[in-house]
């Protein structure tokens, strides 16, 4: 009886797992076979890399890759600087108005940037940042989530270390840089993984703010490439899709444990 239950458990779990990755497997299948072989699910047909070649030459992918890479880098640097400073102020300094401002910051957790697309678009245009990487990245830099995360992490630093550094003659910024930042390394790593994978995958806002291949990130490029108006067939769309998810997917498969830990650390308050 016990053995049967265990078998059923494994069976159910593995069945669900196969269903869950089936879309990826089919895309892989379609991308490596000619369109007619792919849709007929002809298991003995020849493998080919032709679809990748066609897909690659069909759009400025290299440019899109570089754009996405620049975008996530700019956002991450901005977030690190802003959330470190603000998180430190909230965690370790006493000043009037702090609690009120903190509540304002928490409110931003629920006013999603996605919902404010219209006015944010107007703001970005006003600042002259339309169709620029900075324009795509800026609304995300002062992340309330990041400020909250850094505040939590800095609060855990023992006050003795702070005092010791002060007695040694370290200024406030010196203490932040030499004591708090090194101790928060795991939080930075976790935050970086979450931030990079979020913004690598972001679509709606970049779609609105970018208008040329010069700034367009991968997701927007992929959606334009796969648009039905372009009449691209399923094998080539699959190839393009796999190409654009490959870097993040491979990184995930290699650093799986860190990824999962990162999402956990970031999610649990």
């Amino acid at each position: 009886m016990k053995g049967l239950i265990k078998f059923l458990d494994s069976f159910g779990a593995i069945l669900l797992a196969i269903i869950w990755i089936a879309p990826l497997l089919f895309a892989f299948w379609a991308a490596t076979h000619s369109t007619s072989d792919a849709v007929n699910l002809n298991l003995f047909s020849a493998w080919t890399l032709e679809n990748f070649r066609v897909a690659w030459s069909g759009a400025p992918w290299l440019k899109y890759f570089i754009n996405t890479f620049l975008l996530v880098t700019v956002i991450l640097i901005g977030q690190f600087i802003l959330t470190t400073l603000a998180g430190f102020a909230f965690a370790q300094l006493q000043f009037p108005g702090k609690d009120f401002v903190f509540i304002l910051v928490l409110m931003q957790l629920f006013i999603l940037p996605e919902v404010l697309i219209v006015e944010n678009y107007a703001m970005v245009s006003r600042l002259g940042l339309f169709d620029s990487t900075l324009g795509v990245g800026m609304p995300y830099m002062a992340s309330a989530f990041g400020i909250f995360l850094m505040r939590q992490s800095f609060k855990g630093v023992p006050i003795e270390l702070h005092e010791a550094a002060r007695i040694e003659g370290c200024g406030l910024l010196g203490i932040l840089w030499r004591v708090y930042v090194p101790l928060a390394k795991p939080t930075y790593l976790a935050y970086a993984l979450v931030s990079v994978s979020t913004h690598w995958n972001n679509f709606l806002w970049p779609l609105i703010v970018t208008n040329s291949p010069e700034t367009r990130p991968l997701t927007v490029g992929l959606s334009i490439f796969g648009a039905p108006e372009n009449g691209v067939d399923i094998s080539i769309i699959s190839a393009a899709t796999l190409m654009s998810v490959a870097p993040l997917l491979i990184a995930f498969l290699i650093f799986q444990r860190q990824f999962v830990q990162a999402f956990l650390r970031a999610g649990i308050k």
Partner: protein
Amino acid sequence: MSAHANLERRRQAIYGWLLLSPAAVLLTLFAFYPSIATLWSSMFSRGTRRRPSEFVGTENYADLFADPTFWIVVKNNLLYAGVTIPVSIFIALSMALWANSKISARGFVRTAYFTPTVLPMIAAANLWLFFYTPGLGVLDQIGSLFGLPSVNWLGQPETALWAIIIVTIWKEAGFFMIFYLAALQTIPEDLKEAADIEGASRWTYTRRIVLPLLMPTTLFIAVNAMINSVKLIDHLFILTKGGPSDASKLILYYIWEMAFAFFDAPSAAAMTIMVIVVLGIVAAIQFFYLDKRTHYQ
């Protein structure tokens, strides 16, 4: 002495505000000012070349309430939330229970469940396109093995929204699983042993011990799923564009369409304000009510 303390307090205040200012400036530019500007512009008429925009109070809201499409979209989004939230929570919980138990191929199972989380929604939509395409798609191929007729999953009003819902669940369940997984690992082994000694069945153990202990996690996930049911709309751009005849249109997509396809910013603003109000209510419920009821310490 008190002069010194005073000085120190002043120094902290200056530093505090200095350190906050970069974040405060950006939050003002991209969250607070836009929220207020949205509220403001939702109360003005749409300006045309002949007639400049003027204050109309709640007229934009009244127009929206009179717009049948708006109600279709609201209904769609309620169904979208009402299905994706419980189903993805249920699947995430099953995944976590499995991924945490001693089954064979556990590593593979965990990876498979989590993988959709690292894919962009646009890519996910492209993958599922291959499933849904009539005639050529995988679903139709499987159906034809059993002699079922070809179905245009994305092209008919009865199924389009469901096709969208399935992609969303597929995308978010694995993400929610890891929160359950982490919570499961904090449940002490002794509880399981005690339950075994008492002769409690596995079902009783799960229902009476595991599920109550997972309550705070479930709440956290439910709030996240609710936020996702507002913001996860990228796949609409690939799969249905809200069609056919608005059958799969969701609120955020409609806001985008209003603002950037029909150039009707006041209506988009009025809808945005309503979404913010709903999100605010969710936040308030979470902060003041549920948070108190799910802590056991």
